[in-house]
Each structure stands twice: as structure tokens, then as C-alpha cells.
């Protein structure tokens, strides 16, 4: 019943519907474009861009005195883009490494933005509330026209991604090959960076500067665990992003003191944790099961091979041997008795009496095969 009323709220409550819609747009855009950033090991670029956008927002406000989202977002876009250019230049022309360049540009742009912001707040007619929301995100204060601005910018980024899919894919996996095919890879790089800046700018108002980086990294990192195909990864990341956005918005609307931005980030973090543990093939749980199975298989094969060695040294190949002998041959590794039980269940060995075991004809053939494999 609770769920039903929540769904009803989602459809009919204006605020909740707007917030959830905004969060979903944000999740889809940052999830799909974040995939490229994660694959290109530029996860923290999102963090840097979102901080660097601050001065752009304030300057756009100072210049236009407009609080219309699209104008401010364009300012953010320019600043984020400039910051990326600067970072690239620092890494390319000096010996400063990527991480230092990121930290440097991120904090200095942010500091500059902060100076501007505190300066603007002293201008009498400046309503600071609108600008402050970019710092911490105020998803709950999103208006329909904000969501519309987000959707417009986000669609632009997604359309760009669709148009240059092949180029972006080449850039992410083998830029040298791309260059050898004659693609202008540096231009493609700039284009991809631009779409990422757009994605970040789209989310700023909802989750804020600090938490935006999570929305770039987390859905993509989660999606990466489930698939090896780029197209599926991008779709999954968009889905995870949207899911986290909507669930986060719903949870935060149900309790006080649950700010929307942090709640969304916690939901998306939970999705990452689940993916890391449970994803088939790559997931930790899966790997643990495979490793256990391999270990057991190796143990079983080793005991069978030992019995085979003993059998070839006797006239009667089905002569029974004491478990102690096998244990000695296994050099003290445990689990021999258990392994023999498993082999008996499979009909490969036979228990002669209390402590002595012998190969069966099936077991002899199987052991022969395994030993032959080992010698290869």
C-alpha cells in the first residue's frame, strides 16, 4: 500500500514528479557519458569539471543578471571546458602529472568561483539562493523549467554521443588505431570532453558540485561489472543512473533530513556495491565460487593422479592403498579423506576396507587421461 501511494505521489505530486524527473534526466545523461570517462581512466575529470564550473555560473550571472538555468548552465559549460583545456595543456607541456593538474585546476577554479560568489552576494539585488544551489544541489527546489533546461542540454549531449559513437568508441579503446585510420583523434577527444562537460553541468543544480562526480563515476563503474560490450554498458549505466535518481528522490521525499543529492549518491553507491559483489563473471562472489570450484577440482585430480602412480607401480592395478600413503604423497595438504569420498561418489575409487582405497576401472581410465593432460 505504501508503495502504491508513493507511485501515486510520483505521478501526481508536482514537486516530487519534477524532482524525480530531473534526477532521472541527470542519471541518464551522466551515466551514459560517464561510461566513456571511466573507460578512459578519467573518472576524476568529472570531479574537476564540476568544481571548475562554479566561476562560469557566477560570471554568467554577473553578465546577464539572469537566473534562468540555461544561461547559467552555459556559463558553467564554458568554464568547465576551459578548465579541461588548461589541465590538458599543463599535462602536455610540463612534467606535472594528471592527478596534480586535476587537483590544481579543480581547487583554483573553485576558489576563484567562491571569491566571485561571495562578491556577488554583496550586490544588493542578487538573490543568492539560486546560485548557492549549485554548490550543494537543491534537487527539491527544481522547477519544471529547470528540468526542461536539463533535458534540452542532456539531449544535446546524447545526440552528440549517438552521432559520434564510432569515433568515441575508437578513442576509448584504441586512439592510436583511430589516428591511423585517419580520424582526427584530438578533435574527437575535445568533442567527447565537451559532451562530458554538458553532462556534468546538467546535474550541477540537482546534486551540486561536490556530489556530481559520483554521478559520473558510479553508474558507469557499476555497469562495467555486468558486461564487456560498450553499447550495453552505456545503456546499463543510463538505467542505473536513472534508477538511482528516482529511488533517491523518493527516499528523500519520505523522510526529513534526507537531502536529495546525498541520498541519490548513497543509492548509486549501493548499486555499485551490489554490482561489485554479484555481477556474473567479474563479481567478487562469482570469482570466489569459481576459485573454490577450481581448487576442489585440482585437489580431486591430484589425489586421482597419486592413486594412478601407485597403481602403475603394482602388478595389480586395482590393488588397494592406505589413505596414509596418499596423504604422505600429498605432502601434508589436508582434505584427503574428503576428496576420496567425493571420488567414491563419482565411482572413480572404491573403498576396500576401513582405511584402504583402490581405483575402479573408470577411475583408472580417468586418471590415465588426467596424467596425459598434465604431461602435455
Amino acid at each position, binding site marked *: 500500500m505504501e508503495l502504491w501511494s508513493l507511485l501515486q505521489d510520483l505521478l501526481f505530486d508536482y514537486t516530487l514528479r519534477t524532482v524525480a524527473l530531473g534526477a532521472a534526466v541527470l542519471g541518464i545523461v551522466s551515466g551514459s557519458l560517464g561510461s566513456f570517462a571511466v573507460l578512459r581512466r578519467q573518472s576524476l575529470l568529472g570531479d574537476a569539471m564540476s568544481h571548475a564550473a562554479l566561476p562560469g555560473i557566477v560570471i554568467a550571472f554577473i553578465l546577464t543578471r539572469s537566473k534562468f538555468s540555461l544561461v547559467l548552465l552555459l556559463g558553467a559549460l564554458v568554464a568547465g571546458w576551459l578548465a579541461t583545456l588548461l589541465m590538458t595543456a599543463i599535462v602536455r607541456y610540463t612534467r606535472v*602529472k594528471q592527478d596534480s593538474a586535476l587537483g*590544481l585546476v579543480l581547487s583554483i577554479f573553485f576558489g576563484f568561483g567562491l571569491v566571485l560568489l561571495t562578491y556577488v552576494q554583496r550586490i544588493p539585488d542578487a538573490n543568492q539562493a539560486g546560485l548557492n544551489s549549485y554548490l550543494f544541489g537543491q534537487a527539491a527546489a527544481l522547477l519544471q523549467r529547470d528540468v526542461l533546461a536539463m533535458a534540452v542540454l542532456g539531449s544535446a549531449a546524447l545526440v552528440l554521443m549517438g552521432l559520434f559513437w564510432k569515433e568515441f568508441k575508437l578513442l576509448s579503446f584504441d586512439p592510436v588505431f583511430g589516428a591511423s585510420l585517419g580520424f582526427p583523434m584530438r578533435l574527437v577527444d575535445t568533442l567527447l570532453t565537451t559532451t562530458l562537460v554538458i553532462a556534468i553541468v546538467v546535474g550541477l543544480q540537482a546534486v551540486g558540485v561536490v556530489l556530481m562526480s559520483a554521478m559520473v563515476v558510479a553508474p558507469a563503474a557499476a555497469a562495467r561489472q555486468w558486461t564487456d560490450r560498450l553499447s550495453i554498458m552505456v545503456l546499463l549505466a543510463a538505467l542505473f543512473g536513472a534508477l538511482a535518481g528516482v529511488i533517491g528522490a523518493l527516499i528523500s521525499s519520505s523522510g526529513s533530513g534526507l537531502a536529495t543529492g546525498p541520498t541519490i549518491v548513497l543509492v548509486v553507491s549501493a548499486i555499485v556495491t551490489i554490482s561489485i559483489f554479484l555481477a556474473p563473471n567479474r563479481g567478487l562472489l562469482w570469482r570466489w565460487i569459481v576459485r573454490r570450484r577450481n581448487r576442489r577440482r585440482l585437489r580431486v585430480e591430484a589425489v586421482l593422479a597419486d592413486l594412478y602412480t601407485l597403481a602403475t607401480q603394482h602388478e595389480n592395478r586395482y590393488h588397494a592403498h592406505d589413505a596414509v600413503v596418499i596423504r604422505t604423497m600429498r605432502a601434508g595438504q589436508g582434505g584427503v579423506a574428503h576428496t576420496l569420498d567425493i571420488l567414491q561418489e563419482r565411482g572413480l575409487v572404491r573403498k576396500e576396507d576401513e582405511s584402504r582405497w583402490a581405483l575402479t576401472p573408470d577411475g583408472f581410465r580417468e586418471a590415465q587421461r588426467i596424467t596425459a593432460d598434465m604431461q602435455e
Partner: protein
Amino acid sequence: MSLTQIEIQLIATVVAVACALPGVFLVLRSMAMMSDAISHTVLLGIVIGFFIVEDINSPLLIAGAAVMGLITVSLVELLNRTRLVQEDAAIGLVFPALFSLAVILISRFAGDVHLDSDAVLLGELAFAPFDRLVIAGSDVGPVALYTMTGVLLLNLTFILIFYKELKLATFDAALAAALGFSPGLIHYGLMGLVSITAVGAFDTVGSILVVALMIAPPVSAYLLTDRLTTMLGLSAVFAAIGAITGYWVAHWLDANIAGSMAMMLGLIFGVVFLFAPERGMVALAQRRARQKWEFAQAALTIHLLNHEGTPAAAQENRVEHLSHHLRWQPPFAAEVVQRAQRHGLVERHNGYLALTDDGRQLARETLMLAT
């Protein structure tokens, strides 16, 4: 200057220098973004510490925050070791999650406490002098000055005592391990130091600008020197200059002091980036231009050497022919010949070029290098 102004500048300088010292090692070890992560997650440490001791002024909160910094580092490493995510993604996953948790815990359970995320992120240095340390009834100065001087001394002591170990582990971790210094221990020691510094500093400058104070001065110094001691010294000097000029710019604009400090540090970096001898953009451009002419002159002498004494020499060694043979534009060829003449590499005899002894030697040396 009023007493408050002097106190603010003192605090700003001490904070900046205290941050810059461990920052040098972060920059050299390519772990700059760890400072971003730690400076955010220490908030969670403070919140949890507050729930345990229920006293916002308890020094235990700082211990809690430092521990949380170390937990952040090990979580990132743990996630990285699963090899399911890259290291940069691991940082990007861990710290927003912990920071979000902290923000929610504060707003849900500690709403009435002086702990708002606004102040945590931005800090307000201007208010630091109002929190006075009173010993036996007499006012001895702002609390922040004492805590940050303590942090600064701690950093200095750590770096002085473990200087050799830090240096070795930073530049040659394998050798450090082989010699029996545990690079892991030094790594965690350094991270602990970064955490403590971040806790101390974010109260005054905010967590994001801690990153500026930790990274900007060392990066600027890194472009100016190859010596670790010089880099540490220069970083401290840059930090102090950034702090004091930042204060006055903020004072003039009536804006956030920490932000303005970051801005000035950015300005210092900009100047170094452009004008550093050897590594600055201007020096780089000059070197490239010089190398272009040097290369062209070497190519000219080799060309002349190739044809020297052969029947084709008369044809090949005319100035007009260079643009055809070396594919040089005539103005460029003329410029190269002029420079080569000036350096005494070639001589011109009515339209024909002849090598001097120096030119012949340059050509031979260059050919030797090439083979």
C-alpha cells in the same frame, strides 16, 4: 592593521604552510587527488566522533577524522585491488559516498549542532580569530592559531625525522623496500599526516580549498627545482605569499578569504607555468625556436659535406638550389644561410656555399650522433 587582521594573516600563513609540506609528497607520489578524497571524508570521522563523545570541541574528533582519512585510503586501495575498477574510479566512488553519508547524518541527527556542511566545504577564515584560547582566565590568542601551529610542527617533525625514508619511498619504492624501510608504513604515515592536516585546516579554509593549499604550492615549486629540499622550501614560501596576498585581495574585494588565497596560489602557478626558467612555456617556446634553427643549420652543413669535392658540388651548393633540394622555402633558406654564416659554419663565394672547418666538424658530429 588591526590585531584581528594580523591574527587572520598569521592563521592563514600557518595553515597554508602546514598544508603545503605534506602536499609536496602527494604531488611527487602522484596522489594529489587523495587530498581531495581525504579532505571530504574527514567530515564523516568528525560526525561519528561527535556521536561517540557528544562534545563538538573534543580533541577526540580530530583523532576520529584522522582515522577516517586512513580508512578512506585503505578503502580506495581495497577497491583498487579487486581490479574491478581503476584507481581513479575507486577514489571517485569512495569519497562522495562517505561524504554523502556524513551530510545525511548531520542533517538528520545533529541538526542543532554547530556542524553545517556549508562551513565544512567553504570555511570562513574571517571568523577564526573570534574563537579565543583562554588559559587561566587570560586570553592568549585564537584557538585556530594554536591548533594549526601544532599541526605545522607535527608535519615538520615528521618530515625531518623520516626525511630519508620519505625521500627513498617517494623516488624508489622498490629500493626502499629492499633496504628494509617499509614503504607501506611510510605511505600510511604520510596519509595520516594528510588527514590530520586536512582536519585542522578545513575548519578555517574548507575542504575543497585544502586541496588548493596542498597541491598548488608544490606543483609551482616542482616546475622550478629538481631538489626535494628546495621544493619543500619553495612550497612553503609560495604558500605564505599566497596566504598573505590572498588575505589582502579578499579584504579589498570583501570576499571569501580562503577562495582568494586559492586564487592567488593559482596566479603564482600561472606565473611559474609561463615564466619558469627551463620548464616554463616561454622558455619552452624559445628552446623550440632555437632548436629549429640549429637543426636547419646542421642539415645545411651535412648537405654541403655530402657534395663537397664532387662534380655536382657546383650545382648543389648554390643558395637557390637549397629550396629545391632540402624543400625549404626561399626566405627560410636565406635565413638559415645567414645564421650559418654568422656562426662561422659556411662561407659564401659568389653564390656558392662552402663549408668552413667548424661547419665540416658540426656536420660530422651530427652524422656520428645520428648513426
